[in-house]
């Protein structure tokens, strides 16, 4: 080997090393930012982020915000020339609006390029936060279907059982209908020294989501099977009457200004019999360290009447960013929604969107209530998803709040809410 050959080889090796080094250094330079809702799910993923950075060299930063502030913050970034957020956490309420506005990158090319398997994702979740008009824009991240969390100790209390029987002639047991639930809630407020229901009836998203459970539980619906507005029905009026009755006679003081945080604190403090809420709030309340007054005394069930509100979040990729950042964003989504990471998340209380995670033996052994959770998810019905879903929440929320405060009658509020939905759906066409 001549000296010239040796020096050529050394030079080439150095060049390759430099290139590899540069590439590694570049990967390390890549940083993704995501705007995330400040809920337990986000904290669970955040704890796993070092694993992703170790595997790919890409760092991910979560900026956490309360839900009501997210939409505006996301929209202002998505209409700009370059979004500060690369990976997007998209609520199902925006799953019609964002694609229609052209803010999301199509994900099918990424799926094809990386052979990402979509089959394990629960079909209802793919419909809710996956495809929009047959195009894949989102990968389901987690679900937030809603059910009823209640106090088992109060329901089993002998004295309360006797008093309830005496007062109503019925047995005190898990309610089978919405009317039964509201009756028990009012009874508990009067007799059990707790609030009958911790209600999140603040105008807007909180009361719209909460009322949807009452609506579905009482057999009402927003849209008919053929997509026409079907809200103005006797079932819906009755559901709103029961909702208002519970706000005024079963719920805590200040229910009309309360949000999820307020209801959680009340339930956690052992000061409420029940709350209609996201099923994954159960492990938060059933926690001896953070909620000693309620832990061991709470259980989850499907809304009386058999149906509650179904909801979920999906991962999307902002279109207004470079191809390199889009690729990096996809790497993150594929990683975080892989079976391995989804199971790790589930072991920490994650609300899965993949059936193989719900069925995992280890997950079920640790969290037996995932069985009820699957029932809640499977029986859930959806709020109308279209371009103006977020605005419709506001329209509906205003009418519910007016009815809750006694300013308008439930029948009038339902009529106005139905008419508002009809107008917005026509505007979206």
């Amino acid at each position, binding site marked *: 080997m001549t000296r010239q050959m040796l020096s050529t080889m050394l030079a080439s090796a150095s060049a390759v090393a430099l290139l590899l080094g540069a590439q590694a250094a570049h990967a390390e330079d890549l940083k993704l930012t995501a705007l995330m809702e400040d809920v337990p799910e986000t904290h669970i993923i955040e704890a796993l982020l070092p694993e992703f950075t170790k595997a790919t060299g890409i760092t991910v930063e979560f900026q956490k915000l309360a839900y*009501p502030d997210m*939409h*505006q913050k996301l*929209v202002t970034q998505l*209409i700009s020339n370059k979004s500060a957020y690369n990976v997007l956490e998209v609520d199902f309420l925006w799953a019609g*609006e964002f694609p*229609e*506005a052209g803010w999301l990158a199509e994900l099918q090319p990424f799926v094809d390029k990386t052979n990402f398997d979509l089959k394990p994702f629960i079909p209802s979740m793919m419909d809710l936060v996956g495809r929009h008009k047959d195009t894949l824009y989102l990968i389901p991240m987690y679900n937030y279907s809603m059910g009823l969390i209640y106090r088992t100790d109060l329901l089993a209390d002998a004295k309360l059982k006797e008093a309830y029987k005496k007062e109503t002639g019925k047995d005190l047991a898990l309610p089978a209908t919405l009317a039964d639930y509201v009756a028990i809630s009012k009874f508990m407020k009067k007799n059990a020294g707790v*609030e009958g229901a911790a209600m999140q009836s*603040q*105008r*807007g998203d909180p009361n719209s989501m909460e009322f949807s459970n009452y609506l579905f539980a009482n057999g009402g619906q927003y849209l008919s099977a053929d997509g026409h507005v079907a809200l103005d029905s006797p079932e819906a009026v009755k559901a709103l009457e029961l909702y208002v009755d519970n706000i005024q006679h079963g719920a*805590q*003081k*200040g*229910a*009309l*200004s*309360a949000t999820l945080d*307020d209801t959680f*604190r*009340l339930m956690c*403090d052992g*000061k409420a019999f029940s709350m209609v809420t996201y099923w994954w709030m159960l492990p938060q309340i059933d926690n001896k360290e953070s909620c000693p007054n309620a832990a061991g005394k709470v259980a989850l069930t499907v809304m009386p009447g058999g149906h509650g509100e179904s909801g979920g979040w999906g991962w999307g990729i902002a279109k207004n960013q470079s191809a390199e950042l889009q690729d990096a964003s996809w790497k993150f989504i594929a990683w975080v929604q892989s079976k391995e990471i989804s199971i790790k998340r589930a072991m920490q209380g994650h609300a899965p969107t993949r059936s193989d995670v719900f069925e995992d033996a280890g997950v079920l052994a640790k969290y037996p209530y995932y069985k009820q959770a699957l029932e809640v998810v499977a029986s859930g019905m959806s709020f109308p998803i279209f*371009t*103006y879903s*977020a*605005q419709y*929440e*506001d329209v509906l*929320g*205003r009418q519910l*709040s*007016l009815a*809750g*405060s006694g*300013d308008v009658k439930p029948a009038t509020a339902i009529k106005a809410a139905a008419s508002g939905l009809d107008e917005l759906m026509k505007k979206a066409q």
Partner: protein
Amino acid sequence: MTNAAVIETPKPKRHPRDRWRATGWKFAAPGLSMIAIVMGFPLVYALLLSLSSFTLLKPKLQPFIGLENFRAVMADEYFWHSVWVTIEYSAVTVMGEFTLGLVIALVLNRVVRLKAVYFAILTVPMAMSPVSVGLIWHMLLQPNLGIVNRLLELSGIGGVDWLGDPEIAFWTVVFVDIWQQVSFVILILAAGLASLPKEPYEAAEVDGAGDLQQFWYLTLPMLRPVAAIAIIIQLINETRTYDLVYVLTRGGPGIATDLLSYFAYRRAFLGLSINEGAAVSFVLLLMVLVLTVVFFRLVTRRA
């Protein structure tokens, strides 16, 4: 051919007043340019938006649709309610801030010791962002776990539904707003009081005028220009209130606190209609202008 002598005609001398005017414009030019950029451009752009079909879904200024956006928002049955609530809210908060601010400023004007400490404490709320103020009061006024109701219950008075009762929520937001904004009024009025001449008071004392007479016939008239400025600034601020409503009530319960700026936000960002949001903002601007002009005329006419 003779060489014609070049006769130099002297340039006409500029009047000193013209020179002063030109110099004034030169000095003002940098400031005016900045104002044109940071205020003029957004204002013109917002006006264009309010006359166009620009939405977040179709972000194009064309076609112009004239006053259609104004017609659309004014046709909304809740728009006029928001206009009325905004007028009511602005009037009540400004009156509250001015009355309380004047009382405190008068007291502070007589304080000799630790004046700086009192001023430092009073400016704390003003230095806080309205969102922080809203969050703090939201926690304090929480009906079940908040400290205010806890104290009321301990003293034998029942807890109050501060933000969930439509009859009370409006006044709660007014109270929180006054709590934060009154410091500004105090500072302005205190500065005005400190700058008042002493001689009229000495003469009044010689003439035997009491404290109340001195306040009514000397302090108030002499303080009028400063007070007018404080009231006008606060009127503008209060008409635009958004943050507190957003954090505390979201316009509820029902429509009890649905101020016009929150109405504009919802049109723009929830309804994705930036054009209609801009139209509402121009109505708001018009309201502020009318209120300011009317108030200014009232004050200057009396002066």
